[in-house]
C-alpha cells in the first residue's frame, strides 16, 4: 500500500517536473557568466583549466566553505565514533605474502599519482580534492591489504590543520597585498607550464594534503569501529 502511494506521488511529481524542464533547451550554451570566464580566464588568473580558475579564483570563498564542510564532517565522524568502548580485541588473520608485498609495492605509486593529480590541477583535469581522494585510496589499500600497519593519527591531524591554515594564510596575505581575500598576488607566469597561475597551485597543494589526511582519518575511524 505504501509503495503504491509512493509510486503515484512520484509519477505526479515526475510529469510536473518534466513539463517544466523540457522547456529548457538541451545542448546549447545558456549562461553568460560561463562565457565570460572562458573568454577572460587565462589572462585574469593564468590557469589553463577554467574549472580550476572558477573554483579557486573567482569563487575561492566557496571553496573555503567547502573545505570547512569536509572538516566538520571529519570532526563529526571522529566525535560520534570515538566514544565507543570496544569490548573484545579483534583477531585478524595475517595477510598472505603476495597480498602484503603487492600492497607495499603499489602504495608509493598511488601516492605519486595522487600528488601528480593535485600538482597539475591548473593544467589538466584534476585538482586538490581529486588528488586527496586518490591519496586516501592508497591508505584504504593499506588497511585492506596489510591491516597491522596503522596510520599515525596525530601526524594526520597536524597535516590537516596545516593545510587548512595555509589556505587561510594565503587568503589573508592576498587581503594585505591586493585589498581583497584570496587576491592573486603572485606573478601569473606563462599559461600552460607548471609554475603558472600565481597562488592557484599553492592552494591546491594545501587542499590536496588536507583532503587526503581528512578522508584517511574518516577511513581510519570507520575501519576501526566497525
Amino acid at each position: 500500500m505504501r509503495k503504491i502511494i509512493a509510486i503515484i506521488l512520484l509519477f505526479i511529481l515526475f510529469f510536473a517536473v518534466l513539463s517544466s524542464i523540457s522547456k529548457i533547451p538541451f545542448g546549447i550554451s545558456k549562461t553568460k557568466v560561463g562565457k565570460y570566464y572562458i573568454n577572460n580566464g587565462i589572462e585574469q588568473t593564468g590557469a589553463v583549466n577554467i574549472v580550476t580558475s572558477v573554483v579557486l579564483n573567482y569563487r575561492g570563498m566557496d571553496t573555503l566553505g567547502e573545505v570547512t564542510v569536509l572538516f566538520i564532517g571529519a570532526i563529526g565522524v571522529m566525535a560520534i565514533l570515538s566514544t565507543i568502548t570496544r569490548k573484545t580485541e579483534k583477531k585478524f588473520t595475517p595477510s598472505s605474502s603476495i597480498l602484503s608485498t603487492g600492497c607495499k609495492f603499489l602504495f608509493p605509486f598511488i601516492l605519486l599519482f595522487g600528488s601528480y593529480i593535485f600538482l597539475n590541477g591548473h593544467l589538466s583535469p584534476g585538482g586538490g580534492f581529486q588528488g586527496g581522494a586518490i591519496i586516501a585510496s592508497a591508505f584504504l589499500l593499506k588497511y585492506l591489504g596489510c591491516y597491522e600497519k596503522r596510520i599515525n593519527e596525530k601526524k594526520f591531524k597536524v597535516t590537516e590543520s596545516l593545510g587548512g591554515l595555509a589556505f587561510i594564510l594565503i587568503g589573508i596575505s592576498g587581503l594585505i597585498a591586493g585589498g581583497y581575500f584570496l587576491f592573486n598576488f603572485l606573478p601569473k607566469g606563462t599559461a600552460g607550464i607548471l609554475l603558472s597561475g600565481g597562488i592557484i597551485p599553492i592552494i591546491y597543494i594545501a587542499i590536496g594534503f588536507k583532503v587526503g589526511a581528512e578522508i584517511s582519518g574518516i577511513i581510519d575511524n570507520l575501519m576501526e569501529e566497525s
Partner: protein
Amino acid sequence: MDFLFNNIYYIGSFGLIFIGLFILMTKHNLIKMIIGLNIMDTGINLLFITIGYVRKATAPIFSKPDLNPQNMVDPVVQALILTAIVIGLAVLAMGLSLSIRIYQFYGTLDIRKIKEQKW
C-alpha cells in the same frame, strides 16, 4: 520519440532522483535509506552537468592553444558540482557513522523498532 530523444538526459537524471526518493519513502533500513540518499545525490549531479552541456563542445581546458573558446561547455556548473560531490561525501560519512552508533545502542537498524525516535 523526438521528445524522448531531446530530453533523455533530463529523464535519466530525474529518474535517478526519483529512484532515490522512492527508496527513502518505502524502505525502513537505515543503510538502505543512506544508499537512497546517495543515489539522489548522483542524480542531482547528473542533472547539473546536463544543464551545462553543449553539443559537440570540448571540456573548458585550454590544453592545446588552437581550441576554440566559443565551443566549450559551461565551467560554472562543473565547479558547483565539485563542491556538491565533496559535501555528499561528508554527509555519507556522517550518516554511516551515526548508523553504526544507532546499531550499537538499539541493536537494530529498522527505524520502526526504534521507539525513542518517534515524537
